[in-house]
């Protein structure tokens, strides 16, 4: 009951925030509404028992990205440009298109029988974690024997408890405790995210350096231009 209540609240917040982002013209306000919307998305994540994800959402988006955006606003917001009006016609067209798109999406959502689809998905294997093993999992043990030896618990149960941090971490290290290696995936190997994780991290590094470089170099050149202009 509460869960439903919470869901609807945050759902409304999310959608409302989003709509507000679209609606408002002032950049700063838009940023604010965005924060609202993303935050409530994080709340929805929690509702979905994805606690680590929710945390990440809060940290990276609400904490990181939006701040970044605000920085951008501040750097670029010189006088007249803080609010750039869109012509009402565009607004209307945009709205119309948006609504139609929404309808399309909703109709397709409603049109799909998710049960049968999920039935068609590969059947969920037994989760390798037992209750006690989960308990022990808190203790600092070697991931290896824990990953290899004790299994047996229900995935649903794990998600009930909403503790997916360890599993995510393992999966990033290339282990899939929730999957049975013996009867595993298509070619006997369960998909793990070690390599993607590394790639992504490197990619992130590159991006940050690149971004810094881009921002810095041009800025100086342009400032000099400015000086020369004045």
């Amino acid at each position, binding site marked *: 009951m509460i869960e439903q209540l919470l869901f609807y609240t945050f759902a409304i917040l999310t959608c409302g925030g989003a709509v507000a982002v679209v609606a408002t013209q002032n950049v700063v306000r838009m940023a604010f509404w965005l924060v609202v919307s993303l935050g409530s998305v994080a709340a929805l994540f929690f509702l979905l028992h994805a606690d680590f994800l929710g945390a990440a959402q809060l940290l990276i988006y609400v904490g990181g990205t939006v701040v970044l955006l605000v920085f951008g606003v501040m750097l670029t917001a010189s006088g007249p440009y803080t609010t750039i009006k869109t012509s009402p016609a565009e607004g209307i067209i945009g709205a119309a298109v948006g609504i139609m798109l929404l309808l399309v999406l909703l109709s397709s959502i409603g049109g799909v029988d998710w049960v049968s689809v999920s039935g068609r998905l590969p059947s969920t294997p037994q989760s390798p974690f037992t209750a006690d093993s989960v308990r022990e999992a808190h203790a600092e043990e070697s991931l290896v024997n824990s990953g290899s030896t004790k299994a047996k618990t229900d995935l649903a149960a794990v998600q009930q408890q909403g503790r997916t941090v360890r599993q*995510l971490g393992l999966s990033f290290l290339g282990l899939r405790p929730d999957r049975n290696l013996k009867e595993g995936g298509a070619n006997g190997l369960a998909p793990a995210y070690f390599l993607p994780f590394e790639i992504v991290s490197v990619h992130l590094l590159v991006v940050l350096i690149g971004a810094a470089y881009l921002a810095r170099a*041009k800025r100086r050149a342009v400032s000099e231009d400015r000086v020369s202009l004045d």
Partner: protein
Amino acid sequence: MGEVGLNAYLTVGAVLFVCGVVCMATKRNGIGVLMGVELVLNGANVNFVAFSRFTSLGLDGQTIALFVIVLAAAEAAVALAIALNFYNNHLTIDVDRGNELQG
């Protein structure tokens, strides 16, 4: 109101998505466009997580969502850099000014 199901989350995702798209389509402000992008990504994320919750996608959904978040951050960084350069060149961030690609 009955049990909250998959469809509810998907609907939220859809709304986020549409708002993002409309935001991209209507905002002349480059920053606003970036926000639209963020919205779209979030819509996707909502869907991922919802699927990992209600279907057998399991952890994978969350993992992918995680990646999306990270990449979105990266994207935001680069996009901002671009926006800054854009601003330096046009002294505005009105994306309609950036029509050099017009054929």
